[in-house]
């Protein structure tokens, strides 16, 4: 009985959010059934559509896993958006500014740049939280805005592509481009990297010592400290790992889809990733499902514009509702089984 209540509560935000979306649709005279089934077919209806969905899901996998690593350790890191952006810029930079012969070597260095920049970016809030108990929510929130400022400043200044009106860097060299998996869709090898990271995350959670201690610190920091877990080290390294994954995601996005860094690089991938991490309660399977779901929403959302007048903003309504409800508790019940 408790098990089914628990599962119900986990799915409640999604159910309600579709309900809210349905209300909006009815209000404007559209049929929710029609629109939702249209979204379903646009999301999953054909190989090309599935490819588009997976392509949209790719950045979300990274940001969701990145956020989950921090959340799992009890650290409310909301700075993945910033890590993603700066990682993307770093990756694009190595991509266009350096010439390298072999594709794998070039891509490797681009991704490495993303990982390093993303990780280092979150070191300051991590240290402040671990040593001085400074609230990580506000510091990482502020860092996001600083990241945008830095990226915009660089892209409009020293990294601006010559002759470009829009704020963008030069194109990366072909040797840095991530392979397209299913041309002409935008699905690229970054998706495979994302899946790999997701699998690693699953391993991290269930088999690794780091993952175990990360979880214990998140469940009860006092207990962890008392039994001898080095909570400071765990908090800092978890945040660094988070940032690294976020930066890697940004770098993949730059190399696989945009082939450069442009202003507006991330239409909120960090926030969507956070929503996914929340409703999936940091589980690897949940993140996979959630990323594909939100990826489908995003890609279907663009194409249904061709068939209906429904504005893309409906997606935001759905996502916003999910976030509003993701952390409520309706049922108070005893958990008899330790899960995850």
């Amino acid at each position, binding site marked *: 009985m408790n098990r089914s209540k628990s599962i119900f509560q986990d799915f409640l935000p999604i159910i309600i959010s579709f309900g809210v979306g349905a209300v909006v649709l009815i209000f404007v005279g559209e049929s929710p059934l029609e629109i939702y089934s249209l979204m379903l077919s646009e999301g999953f209806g054909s190989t090309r559509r599935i490819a588009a969905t997976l392509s949209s899901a790719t950045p979300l996998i990274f940001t969701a896993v990145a956020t989950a690593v921090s959340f799992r350790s009890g650290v409310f890191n909301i700075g993945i958006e910033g890590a993603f952006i700066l990682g993307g810029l770093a990756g694009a930079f190595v991509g266009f500014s350096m010439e390298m012969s072999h594709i794998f070597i070039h891509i490797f260095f681009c991704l490495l740049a993303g990982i390093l920049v993303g990780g280092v970016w979150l070191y300051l809030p991590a240290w402040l939280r671990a040593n001085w108990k400074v609230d990580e929510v506000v510091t990482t929130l502020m860092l996001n805005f600083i990241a945008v400022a830095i990226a915009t400043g660089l892209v409009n200044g020293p990294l601006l592509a010559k002759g470009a009106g829009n704020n963008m860097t030069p194109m990366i060299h072909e040797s840095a481009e991530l392979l397209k998996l299913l041309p002409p869709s935008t699905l690229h090898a970054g998706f495979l990297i994302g899946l790999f990271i997701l699998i690693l995350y699953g391993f991290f959670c269930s088999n690794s010592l780091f993952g175990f201690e990360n979880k214990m610190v998140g469940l009860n920091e006092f207990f962890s400290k008392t039994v001898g877990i080095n909570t400071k080290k765990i908090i800092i390294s978890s945040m660094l790992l988070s940032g690294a994954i976020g930066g890697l995601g940004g770098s993949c996005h730059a190399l696989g889809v945009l082939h450069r860094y442009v202003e507006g690089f991330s239409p909120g991938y960090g926030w969507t990733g956070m929503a996914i991490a929340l409703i999936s309660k940091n589980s690897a399977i949940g993140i996979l499902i959630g990323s594909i779901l939100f990826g489908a929403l995003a890609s279907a959302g663009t194409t249904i514009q061709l068939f209906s007048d429904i504005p893309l903003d409906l*997606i935001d309504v759905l996502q916003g509702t999910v976030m509003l409800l993701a952390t409520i508790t309706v049922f108070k019940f005893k958990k008899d089984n330790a899960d995850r």
Partner: protein
Amino acid sequence: MQIVEYILASGVLLTTPILLAAMGGLFNRLGGIVNIGLEGKMLLGAIVALLVSANTNSWLLGILAAAFASSLAGLLFSILITRLNANMIIVGFGLNIFIAGLVGFYLKWFHGSSGTLKLENTVLLPKISIPFINDLPILGTLFSNKDPLTWISWLIALSMPWIIFKTRLGMRVRCAGSDEHVARAIGLNVKTLMDFSSSVAGFFAGLAGAHLSIGMLGLFSMGLISGRGFIALAAFYFGRNMPIRTSLVCLVFGILDSMQIRLQGLGLPSEPVQAIPWITVIGILSFMGWREHRNSQELG
């Protein structure tokens, strides 16, 4: 000297929405809730003000409707937190995204617009010109021809300390926000006090949004708020919840805003100036954390 005066004058105008939102956010935080959703409530206020003003030919009804709508949004946000145990940060973000979605949907559906809205018959806020003040040397430029909301925002800012520290309501809100147990032991209804503080925050955020739309250009766009809800947050964090300090910080931020617009116009990088609010908050939080750490009895 011209340019300095100009920057100051437009700085004061740009301060108004930040100040209004910050005052509301400050009150909310004293009540125990960190309101990350100011941005969304400002957006809501902005469009409601525009719509009502255009349809009723009254700027007053416009700002009142905006305040009312946003305070309802504030109440909804708060109830999720106080009665349903939602996490206040997530709900704040969720609210921003939710409102952005609804507003964007509405714009496209009912006005066929892809992000901006300009309506006929929109009544802008009038400019109040007080002859005596106009002639003063510096204050004259600062305070002449300012709209009612600007005056109201400073009135609120100056009366906030009194409301917070000298009234029973202020004391009780602060009590509820500081220590729930003590509040309950005295018999205060903590949840109601918190919800009330959120509605107040929504009210002022609505006014702030209204200022951005019908206070200056009579135009609405999805990007109108452009982070000012978060700048207001930065302001009351930096001002450590003290109204006068916070309003001065808002003024500084407003002037910085005016400066960075100028810099952009001149083709110079404006980002370093833009980043100042964020960096100062990190700085002040680090300082406060260091002080706490120094005084604690915990090892390491």
